[in-house]
């Protein structure tokens, strides 16, 4: 019973108090408010770090469960080996430059991760051929705008390198920027109202389930 009541009321109260405090301290230059602000910001980073650790533990737990069930066992074992190796290397040799930890990051993690991202270049090329079509006037405007940007940032010489970039920069700086600004303002107002709803307890989806 206590759990059921406190499970929602206490977190909502904590959310309300810290939301209000962090909002109000914005308007104060008093040393107490500044200290309180700094303290809460430090605590926030620490608690957030714990949430990362919890997430990492969940990855480990799920993998162990899946391995015991036999699903994708060899692949998951490789993944787990990679996962365990990083803290082990850091523990033994530290995290300075020229340590095995750094070596793993630079020769295993970074190359693979950037190559995964590089695959997108191929999918963009494929999508350009198969999906990027002037089916309507707005679609044609989108297409022309994209092609203009690509041409203006290519070094082909002549007008393409001299005059076109100026036209493209103007489009980027004015009509394109205006639409982006409208989106930004829309998101800003949306975030503002959502934040208010969270603090006063109307928006409660972050509480998760109903207990």
């Amino acid at each position, binding site marked *: 019973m206590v759990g059921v009541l406190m499970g929602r009321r206490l977190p909502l109260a904590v959310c309300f108090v810290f939301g209000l405090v962090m909002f109000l301290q914005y308007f104060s230059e008093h040393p107490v408010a500044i200290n309180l602000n700094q303290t809460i910001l430090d605590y926030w980073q620490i608690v957030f770090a714990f949430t990362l*650790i919890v997430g990492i533990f969940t990855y480990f737990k799920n993998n162990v469960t899946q391995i015991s069930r036999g699903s994708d066992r060899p692949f998951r074992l490789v993944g787990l*080996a990679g996962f365990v190796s990083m803290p082990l290397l850091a523990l033994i040799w530290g*995290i300075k430059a020229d340590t095995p930890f750094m070596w793993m990051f630079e020769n295993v993690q970074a190359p*693979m991760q950037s190559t995964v991202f590089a695959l997108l270049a191929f999918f963009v090329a494929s999508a350009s051929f198969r999906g990027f079509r002037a089916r309507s006037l707005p679609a044609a405007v*989108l297409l022309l705008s994209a092609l203009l940007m690509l041409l203006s940032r290519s070094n082909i010489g002549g007008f393409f390198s001299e005059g076109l970039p100026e036209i493209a920069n103007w489009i980027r700086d*004015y009509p394109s920027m205006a639409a982006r600004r409208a989106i930004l303002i829309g998101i800003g107002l949306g975030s503002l109202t959502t934040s208010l709803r969270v603090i006063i307890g109307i928006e409660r989806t972050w509480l998760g389930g109903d207990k």
Partner: protein
Amino acid sequence: MEAGTIVAGILTLAILSFLYRDNPVYKMAEYLLIGVSIGYVLVITWTNTLVSLLFEPLWTDSNLWLLIPFVLGLLMWARFHRKTAWLSRIPIGFMIGSGAGVAIPAMLYGRTLKQMSATITPLMDSSGVPDLSGLIVIIGLLTTLSYFYFSREHKGYFGGLAKLGTFFLMIFFGTTFGYTVMSRMSTFIGRMEFLLTDFLRLTN
């Protein structure tokens, strides 16, 4: 050739093999990448944050106030048991509340008002020459906002404004698409530079 270059080259090719189709070599590399990345985050979070912000000052300087975030952090672990799971909502409430509190002035002042005031610029310069670019920004902003206004049906005069807004949006999406293509190509070019220069040594 250094061992690191050979390893990086082989793993790069393993990932690129996905372009033909999904295969066990790619899958192995993918799982390894996920494992190593998560192990990396664990190390960096532990050494760079928890040790320097929490454990060092707590044990060395006996700063007992830090027991508060420590306990809040530990409460996150309560979510692994059904009966105690509700306790993890307390640190979440702390983070969500703090985030919402600081977001209000940032969204209002740092974003909305600043962006609005930047839009309102003189439409003529001191010599009386109209600033067409500034006018286009105002028209673009208002018509795009009209497009996102759903409390009124997009018909008649208002529908026309919203329709004009879609053209500004298309220009923005096109511009963004163009720049995104550049970005993806740059990433691929970077990997090819590694393969051709360091791994295969076909060029300098």
